[in-house]
Structures are given as C-alpha cells and as structure tokens.
C-alpha cells in the first residue's frame, strides 16, 4: 500500500495543495480511504493527520468506509425532485434498508444520492454501477433492484 501511495503523491510533485486530487486517486485505487493510506499520505506530504482527516471528511466524494460491490447513485437535483425522485429515494431506502451513504452488511450494495448529475432531460435518474437509467419510476426501480438481487445470487452461487 505504501508504495502505491508514494507513487500517487509523487505524481502530484508532493505538493500539498493537491491534497484533494491525491485523495481522489487514493480512493480510486482502494475504493475508499483506508486509515493506513491516509496515514501514508500524511507522511509523504508532511502534513498533520488532522489536516488530512479534515479534508477527507469535509468532501462528500470521500468515503472512510469500504463501499459495496454494486453502487447505486440516485440524482436528487431539482429537476429530478420535481419529477418525483424523492419517492424513488424512499422506495430504495425501504427496499434495501439503506440510507443514503450506507453500505449493506454483506458489502453488496452502496446507496448514495447526489446533488445533480446534469442530465436533467432524463430525470429522475438512477446510476447503477456507472450505467445511467433515465425516466425512473417506482416500477422501473423495483425491476432494477430485482435484477441486481439476481446478479448477487448468481455471484454467490458461482462462489
């Protein structure tokens, strides 16, 4: 892990003003920000733990906990909201038992909401593992969640 962190920090010339992009790269590498990685960033950049922790917890894009295998991101931008995104939000929360930002205990799903994805014509939008699903409604959401559930079962069987 330390070697990886060294490389990332080096890429930005060990310049502490690049702390945010450095943490973005670390998160890309590990899927979240592991504590050891953050400590390594502190050492490499020569900044205090508290400074890195402050930045890592301030920005929404960072997660200090591991994230699930499947990633659901629901847009709650204004255009999506006026077209009923909050109903889909409720529906996902009750179906998966997850609030925004939470990961299921089996590490299969992470559910997040986002301010705006800027694809308002397709609102409400649900992004599942990077794939955009537009004009969402309750019925479509149910179908997507069911299919994801099947995917998980299939993966389990393979394992």
């Amino acid at each position: 892990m330390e070697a990886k962190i060294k490389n990332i920090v080096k890429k930005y010339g060990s310049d502490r003003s690049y702390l945010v992009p450095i943490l973005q790269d670390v998160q890309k590498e590990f899927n979240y920000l592991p504590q050891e990685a953050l400590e390594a960033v502190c050492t490499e950049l020569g900044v205090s733990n508290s400074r890195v922790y402050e930045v890592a917890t301030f920005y929404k894009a960072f997660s200090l906990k591991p994230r699930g295998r499947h990633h659901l991101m629901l847009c709650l931008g204004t255009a999506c909201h006026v077209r009923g995104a909050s109903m889909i939000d409720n529906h996902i929360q009750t179906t998966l038992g997850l609030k925004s930002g939470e990961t299921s205990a089996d590490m299969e799903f992470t559910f997040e909401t986002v301010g705006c994805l800027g694809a308002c014509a397709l609102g409400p939008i649900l992004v599942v593992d990077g794939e955009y699903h537009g004009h969402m409604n309750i019925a479509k959401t149910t179908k997507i969640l069911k299919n994801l559930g099947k995917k998980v079962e299939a993966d389990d069987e393979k394992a």
Partner: protein
Amino acid sequence: MRKLKTFDGVEKLRGELQKGRDPNKPCMTVCVGTGCLAYGTQKLVDSLKVELEKRKLQDKIDLRLSGCHGFCERGPMMVIYPQKIFYQRIGLNDAAEIIDKTLLKGEIIDRLLYVDPMTKEKIVYEHDCPFYKKQMRLVFGMNGQISPTSIDDYIAVGGYAALVKALQKMKPDAIVQEVIKANLRGRGGGGFPTGWKWDETRKATGDPKYVICNADEGDPGAYMDRSLLEGNPHLVLEGMIIGAYAIGSSNGYIYVRNEYPLAVQNITAAIQAAREYGLLGENILGSGFSFDVKINRGGGAFVCGESSALFASLEGRAGEPRVKYIHATHKGLWDKPTNLNNVETWANVPFIINRGADWYAGIGTAGSKGTKIFSLVGKINNTGLVEVPMGMKLREIVYDIGGGIPNGRKFKAVQTGGPSGGCIPEKYLDSPVDFDELTKLGSMMGSGGMIVMDDRNCMVDVPRYFLSFLEIESCGKCTPCREGVRRMKEILTDICEGRGQEGDVELLDSLAKAIVDGALCALGNSAPNPVISTIRYFRDEYDAHIRQKKCPAGVCKKLIKYRIDAKKCTGCGLCVKVCAVGATSGERKKPHAIDIAKCTRCGACMESCKFEAIIVE
C-alpha cells in the same frame, strides 16, 4: 503537430484547414454530450462506424462526434450536413438505415423527424425546429460544428482569432476597457461586472497573479457549464488566455466538478493540444506572454462554488469561505491577486474581442448584455439548454422554446437561481429575463437553472427540498447558515407533515431575515430565498398545509390519501401488481379499492394506472 510561433502561423493554419475541408461533404454530426451518452448513444456511434466501414464509405462520409446540441429531451440526435437534416430519438439500431436511405439516396426517414407539439408539423431541418428558432446561439453556436477533442476543428471555424487579435493588436488595458464597455456580467450567479474585476486584479500589487475558471457547477438543475467544457473547451480556454494577458497573470486554474468526468477529459485534452500548438505555455505565439493552466477536480462540495471556499479547496484545505473584507482581486488564492470567473463568462470573452464591445452591448437589455444559457428543466416538454438574448420574456422561453408543460397540465411556477433563487409565479411570465428583473421578482439569475413546475408540485415541498440540500451542503463555519437553515427546514418539514402551527410562517420569515443578515458567505445569506419567495407568492399553500392540513398539489405524503375512482377504474389489476404492501385489491374487471391503513403513499399505483383512475386528495 507543429508549434505555432507567430500570429500569422495561426491564420496560415486556419487557411490550410479550411482549404482541406469540403463544406459540401456529407457529415453526420452526433451529439455525445453526457445527456445523450446516457441514452446509450455510444452504441449508435459504434454501429455508425461499423456500417460506414462495411460500405467502404469512411472516406466519403464524415462522422463527427460533437458536444451538446442543447436539445437533451430528444436524444440520441444527429444533424446531417450539408443540408442540416435533423434526426432525433434515433434508435440504437438505426445506423444502417440512416446511411442507406438518407446519406446515399437522399431520402428522409419520417419517424426520426421532430414533430412540433403545437402544430403537429414534422420538421426536417434543424434551423426550422421551434426549439432552436427563437434562440440566439452565440456561446453555444459552435457546439454542433466541432468535435470538442479537435483543436483543428475549433481553429477551422475561427477559433483563437480573438487571442491573436488581443495579443497582436491590443494593449492589456485596452482589453480590460473593451470588456468594461461590453458590460459583461458574471454568469456564475452574482452578475458582477467582469471588466471591473479584471481591472481591480490588473491594478492590484502582488506576484504571481492567478486567473481561475470556476467550473464547480453545483447548482442542482443547471448544467450549461458542463456542456460548454464538454462541447467547446477551447472557447473557454481562449477566453482565459485573453483574460490572463489583460490582467497580467501567468498562472491559471480550472476548478471542475469531479462528477463531470467527460468535461474533465475534454478540457484536459484541450489544454494539451493548446500547449502543443504553442497557444499555451512559454512565449505564446512569439508575443513574449506566457501562461499555463492546471486542472483541479473538486471533491463534491456545493460550497466550493463560492470563490473563497474554492481558493481554500485549491490550497488543499476544507472548502470553507472567508469574510470578504479584502477582495479576492487583491488577496485571493495563496493571498495573491486572483481573478475568478465562471465558465460561461470566460466563453463570452472571445466574442467581445472578435466583434467588439459595441456589437456585444447591442444584444440584451440596459443592464444585462449578451446572451444567457439557461437549463430549462423540470415539467417542460423540451428539456434542454437554451441560449437566448438577455431580456427575453419568461413566457417565450417556457412556451415557444420549451414547448409548454407536458401532459396538458397547468403551469405553476418557474424556479430560477438554484438554491439561492426563488419561484416566480404565472402572473410574472411576461417579465423580461435579466439580472435586475429577476432580482426584483425576489429570485435571481444564478447560474441559469430554470426549473419549471406544474400544478402537481407543492410550493412548500420545493423550498423544503432546497433547504434539505443546503443543510447537507452548509460548510458549518458560520452559525446562521449551519443552525438557521436546519431550523427552517425542521419548521417546513413540520408543515409538510401536518404539524404546522399558526405563526410558523412568521417564524420562518424572521429566521430568514436573520440568516440573510448574518451568514458569512453569499451562499449562506441567499439560502432562505426559496422560502421567502414561496411565502411571497404562494402563501395560500402554506396556509392550506397549516390550517386545513392539506397539500393542494398532492405531494406531501402525510397529508394525502389515494382513492380509486370507481367510474374510471377498469379493474385491470395493474395497481395490485405494483403495490409492494398489498394495499390495492379488487376483483378483475371490477372497480378496485385502496386500503388506506396499509397504503404507504409511495405513488406506484398512480404512476402505473393507465386510466387516471387513482385520485390523490
């Protein structure tokens, strides 16, 4: 790629590029902006490539992947040059048919044409489409003609001519004066005169000076900056280089949202290409002026759109704003003179330099010059990005360009200015849209979000939505915003859930005043605006929630009930199928019923009913 070392070099290259291009050569321009890609346009592009190769036509017919055309509602879309035939809602398997029929035989494919919802007429050419007809596509004008990843495309249509003119023929101070004369105002929200800001930074003492492009477009419902960076990154870059020359800066930053991966990719490629041509870097075009730009990706914090918070983020700290008793033009990034403008503002600069301040100031109203791009979204037929001259009436934007409200519903309000703005009711639809008029109406221009709402949107729920957004996004530094916004949201939630009391509206009002007066940054002290404006125009809806415990729009879950209209219900059973809690029941082909005790008001039954038999009350 050869490095351009002189001003003439750019013109010479342009000449060569134009000569090598046949304007009559057939070309399919496909929009690959984020919106269209979300429709699956990449598959269409792949099959267009395959089909062209199959027919050995790849040298005879060009395929251009362009940035956003603005008409996001109708994607995937294509414009076929030279005739400018406009195809929309293209099926992902339509590639072969388009090539065989339209490109080879000149036949028009009827089903891919846009149908004007007003006249039911089929529109063949892009310029006849009512969505485009009333627009004035200046800043967005090139989007359909160029590939964003090709600097040659940009130069061929006249790109970097303004930079050449500025460096070759204008003194820095003359450029500043030109921008002041054009009265360009900041497109990011505040509407501050750009030229004055440039002048201040230019005169400030301190070294180095920074110019920054604010592409942290956090306003939910606005995406014009993303589309500009994605679709025409060189235009933004050209504006920045001119600005840097005028101000006397050699260091630029573009601070862009990490949620916009394609914009990051395209602007990164644009910077690289500009460097290779010698349009960025040391001694640009032999002028002696040097300037370079770095890209910084944001971390997903709305507050970082505020300038001083953005500086903090660029310095590698948490994005908290500071009090601005000293302007950024004197002490900004790293406490050095800094000029920050929004993406769209920078994109306006090359036009002012090319065509002059007098021409530019001829567009728009007395106080607001030029065009403005709005993202027209929500309950509107033609969702998309529209660019209109300042001063166009709201009604023209909503009805003539936007095509009105879907499903024959009634217009209720249009929300502008994002979380800092307000809701404008129907009676002001004939107001001209510019910075000052919108402020007078209790809203603001903001970055140009324009969210249309119909009679099914609750005007207590909408401000509650904005405050929930702001509660999460508040950086927490100052108490009025951190605590005040939260308290206001709690009161609104109470009203939405039937716990509203007499005096709540007055309490909201006084809290709002305290936040406006006391919050530290512009995002904080404009946070109560959605509440203030809805109280001003939709007080009756607040009263209905508080006194009758009713939500007239049928949105607030705790105040509504679903019921089946026995006359309309055909007993198809669809509502039974979609209900997750078994609240709907009935015999086939006989009117169904909803068990209110079980119903969670999720709305699935109403959404699924094809006969409008489910009533909310």
